Each structure stands twice: as C-alpha cells, then as structure tokens.
C-alpha cells in the first residue's frame, strides 16, 4: 500500500461517464462499467464516482447502476452525488459502496454528517469542499448543485464538517478542474494546516509532479479525472494509470 493514495475520480452524468472543464462542458468519455473494469486490471487501489447531475436535478443516486459498479469494482469504491438522507446512505453501504461523499446535503445541514458518522463511523463519511477562485483570485466556497459561490468562508465550512464527523475532506479546486495545469497548492496548504483528518486534493493534476506538489503541500491523497482519461493535445480518451513502482518512487 502506498503512503499516499492516488484515486481516479469518475464523473457520472445519467448513465455515462463525462469529464468537465471547470465544472462545465461535460464531454462524454464512455461506459462506466468498462472504465471500472479497466481500472481493475490496472490495479488501482481506490476509486471515486461522483454523479454530477443528481443533486442538480434533485434526484436520488442511481442505485441500480451503482450496484453494478460495486459488483464490478475490485477496489474500494467511493460514491457521491444526490445523497440526501440516512436511507440513501444505508442503501449505498448495502450495495457495497465503502465511502460516501456529501456536499449539497452537508451545506444544508451538518447534523446529517454527525448522524452518519455516528452510525457508520467517520472513516466512511467524506465531505466535498468545492472552492472556486473568482477573477481576482479570491477563493470562495462553491455549491456545485446550483453553480453559485456562497458567502460562508470555505475554511470555516471545512472545519465545521470535520467537527461534525467527516472522516476525510475532498478539496476540489473548481477553477483548476479538467485543466491539467497543476493543482492549487495554496488552497491545499491552507486546508491541511487547519484540520487533522486526511485531505484528498483534486482539480488540475496533469502530471505526477503535480501530484507530488499537492502531497508536499499537505494532501494525504490526490484524486484526478482528466489525468487518467485524457491523452495529448486532442484530449483523446485513453484510460491510463501510473505503474505502482512509479508511484512508489514518486512518494519515497
């Protein structure tokens, strides 16, 4: 097992996988079942699937599809998107999902996080903190369900989530999403310095060096989408994952 986990993050829209650019313009990248199968064969040690339209459209998670994912997936599977209550969470865990990730519901009511953490343990409850920088470069908490920036300071929300029982924080830099131009290490450092649960950094990874920089800034794990599904100037869809030895060398 590596000291720092490298987690492919797959975005689900309806029944298909997509990849976004700064949370917009979803581009179809294929069938999720086949992608999971390929990641299995690549011996990835953790996978995250986020449904990007469930909360937007006020829908519950697509349980039958997630059941198929869980039965195909050899690695621990995390799922986020449209989880609104204890019953949703219960169903997901029963289907074989190991970690659930909340955002919209957590923004509305942190009590839900508390109840979930009490019932299933913090280690399986993740909160996603999406942060967007405006044109002046000022970071703000972002609500992915309606695409709006919120007035609550993002660091405060993160700390509250941890206090409520979130076992991991996923810090998603909206302005870097899909750009493959490097991760926002400043945000990562700020986040890592303000709390002590594992931090999963996501947004902007375009190389192994970017991932190393995120870890150096304090992330305990790095997640990425475009980096694992796109290749070259045409953003050609091609699923790749670094060799174990490469990652081992990177973090040694």
């Amino acid at each position: 097992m590596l000291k720092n986990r490298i987690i492919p993050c797959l975005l689900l829209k309806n029944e298909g996988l997509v990849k976004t650019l700064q949370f917009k313009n979803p581009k179809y990248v294929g069938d999720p079942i086949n992608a999971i199968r390929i990641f299995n064969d690549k011996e990835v040690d953790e996978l995250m699937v986020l449904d990007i339209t469930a909360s937007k459209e006020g829908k519950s998670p697509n349980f039958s599809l997630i059941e198929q994912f869980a039965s195909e997936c050899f690695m621990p599977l995390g799922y986020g998107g449209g989880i609104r209550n204890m019953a949703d969470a219960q169903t997901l865990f029963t289907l074989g999902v190991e970690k659930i990730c909340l955002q919209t519901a957590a923004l509305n009511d942190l009590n839900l996080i508390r109840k979930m953490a009490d019932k299933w343990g913090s280690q399986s409850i993740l909160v996603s903190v999406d942060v967007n920088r405006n044109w002046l470069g000022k970071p703000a908490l972002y609500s992915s369900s309606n695409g709006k920036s919120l007035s609550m300071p993002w660091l405060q929300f993160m700390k509250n989530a941890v206090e409520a029982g979130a076992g991991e924080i996923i810090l998603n830099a909206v302005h870097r999403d899909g750009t493959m131009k490097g991760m926002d290490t400043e945000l990562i450092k700020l986040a890592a310095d303000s709390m002590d649960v594992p931090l999963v950094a996501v947004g902007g990874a375009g190389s192994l060096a970017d991932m190393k920089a995120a870890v150096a800034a304090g992330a305990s794990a790095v997640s990425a989408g475009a980096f694992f599904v796109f290749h070259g100037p045409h953003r050609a869809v091609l699923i790749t994952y670094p060799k174990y030895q490469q990652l081992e060398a990177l973090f040694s």
Partner: protein
Amino acid sequence: MNISKTVFCKRCVCDSTMPEIRFDERGICNYCEQYFTRSGKIFNIAHQEKSYKELVAKIKRNGKGRPYDCIFGVSGGVDSSWGLVKAVEAGLRPLAVHMDNGWNSELAQNNIANLVRSLGVDLYTHVIDWEEYRGLMQAFFDAHVIDIELLYDNAMLAVNFKQANKYGLRYILAGYNQATEGIPLPNSWTWNKLDRKNIEAIAKQFGNMKIKTFPAVGAWDWAYYNYIEFIAFIPFLDYFQFNKSEALQLLQKEYNYKPYPYKHYESIFTRFYQGYILPEKFGVDKRKIHLSTLVASGQMSREQALEDLQKIPYPSMQDLEEDKRYFLKKMNWTEVQLKEYLSKPEIPHDHYPSEIKRVNKILNLRENIPPVISQTIVKLVNKFR
C-alpha cells in the same frame, strides 16, 4: 462436427465444413489458392520497394503545410501497432485514430498508450455513446444476423474518413494486410461493412431507434469521400515485408507491448463473439482462416495450426466464463436469454433492407473509369486546392 469425415486442405487448415470450399486434384483448397494468386503481385519485393517509396512520397506531399500527413487507425492489436511504428520510421506524421465502443480491454488501452507516447504521435479517440451502441447491438442480436461487428467496423470507417477530411488528408493507413489476412473470409461469414441501410433498418425494426450519434457510413458517403475528396484507405503493411512474430518481438522489446493469445482480442466483445457466439450460434470458427493465412504466408507450421484448432478459442474455460459474465452484465441479459439467442437460427442480412447492390455498383465504378480520366481529375482537383 464429425472429425473423421472432415477433409482438411493439404496445404492450409481449411476444411470441408466451410462454405464454398473446393479441393483440386492435389487436395488443395480454393481458399489458400486465392491467397497465392492475390499475394503474388503484392509480395514481389522489387515491386514492393518501389511502390513503398512512391506511397511515402505521395503522403508527404499531401501533408505539406498540414499538422499531419495521414491518418493511422489503431486498435492496440499487433498489425496496426506495427504499422504505426513503420509509418513513423518512414518519416510520416500520422494522426493515430482510435475508436472506443465500450468494449476496450485494458491491454488495448495500455498498448496504445505506450505506443503513442514512445513514438510521439498525437491521438484522437472517438468514444461511441454506449447506451446507443448497446441498443444497436441488441437490435442486431434480435435480428439474428451474423455480422454483429458490422457496427464497429462501419463506425470505424466513418470516424477515419471524418478525421481525414477534417485535416484535408488523402491517406488513411490501416493495419489490414495480406501477410496475416490474405485469405478472405467466406462471404457468408461477414457482411459488407458499408451497408448503412442494413444497420438503420435493423435498428428501426428491432430497437425502434434512429441513429443519433453513431457515426455510420454508407455507399453514398463512401462515394463522396473517395470520388470527391479522394480519400483512400491504404493497407500499409502490404508495402513492405511483414512478419508477425518478428513484429511482435520488437514491439514487446521496444514498446512494452503486451500480446494477446488470438487475433482481434483487443476488444472483449470481439473476443467473445469470435470465441463463443460465432462457433456456438453460427458454426463459424474464424481461426481456420486466420491460421490458414499464417500457414500460407510461412509464418506458422501447418501442424502447429492444426494443433491450435483442437483447443478452445480461449486461453482457458475460466477466461471464457469471465467474458460470458461480463457480456451478460454489459448487455443486461440473463443466462437464459443468452441460451435462447444461441439456439435460434441465423437470419441472413439481406432478409432486411440493404444497400449492398448500391455499394457494389459504387465500388466497381472505380474499375470502370479509365485510369487516364481519373488521373486527370485528380490532377485538376489538386490544382484548385
């Protein structure tokens, strides 16, 4: 099949159970005979070298001032991988084009990634919408036609043509070749890959669906790309000596290439189709043709080929079971549905609406135009570009 009554060709491994097979007085069949007649022209070394140089020069000329000079269709298999290596070696600047129909294996992805990275070749992938593709596949299963892969092959042609057209390129290089594919499959084992109407008719009748994003190509599209845009598919591997096992060794050594046990196993569906559906439902074993070609081109001994044919077309029963499980899951089928499908008889493609007559007319058109005229047209068109 009663082995004792089956007669094998004395030279290759084709046998008397195959359609339209005839043996001459020496006990040699029409399949491998066709190979030798056709390849005589292609494998004349002096001729090959001359046309190779001419081809490379033409491609380079066409590519002047453009980001690429040709398209190279890649699947992750040996033939197209080796072709791409040789194209770069020849100083060409190909854009590698790949199509993903939701059945790609990890091996294929890995091979393509290693190859384009080491060669520094740009890649374009067309990902077909899986939900639509699954609908089309389901319609083809319900129609009980033999050539399910018509869907992939047709779309692949369309995607290559579109990319060539986008960059103003005339040449689409591909991995198909005489040395390993020189014996044509029996007519009844496949269907014409340009029969767009057949695809649309089957989709409508059984899936009540219209093609939305599936990139289909028919006779008229083909005529447009060929006669108006002058885009041609080139069997690049026929322009030089191609030995599969040598190519494989080099690919493994230089490009970290991972081989597959059988031809066309880069897609999980193709593997299951050739290794299970074709033999079980249609009584067709394509390996007979693939292996016979390797025997005819001197790349495998006849004894080895006969021995291979005795084995199941899968590395192990466990691998077959795993693919079956995966197939059922992807198609949302139960085991009973698969059994039912396999037990029903084949229905020929032309039982459904088809544009095969038009395809054949248009394909023959080229042979009917005197070369002087067609070359003049090409020159004229070149002037105005």
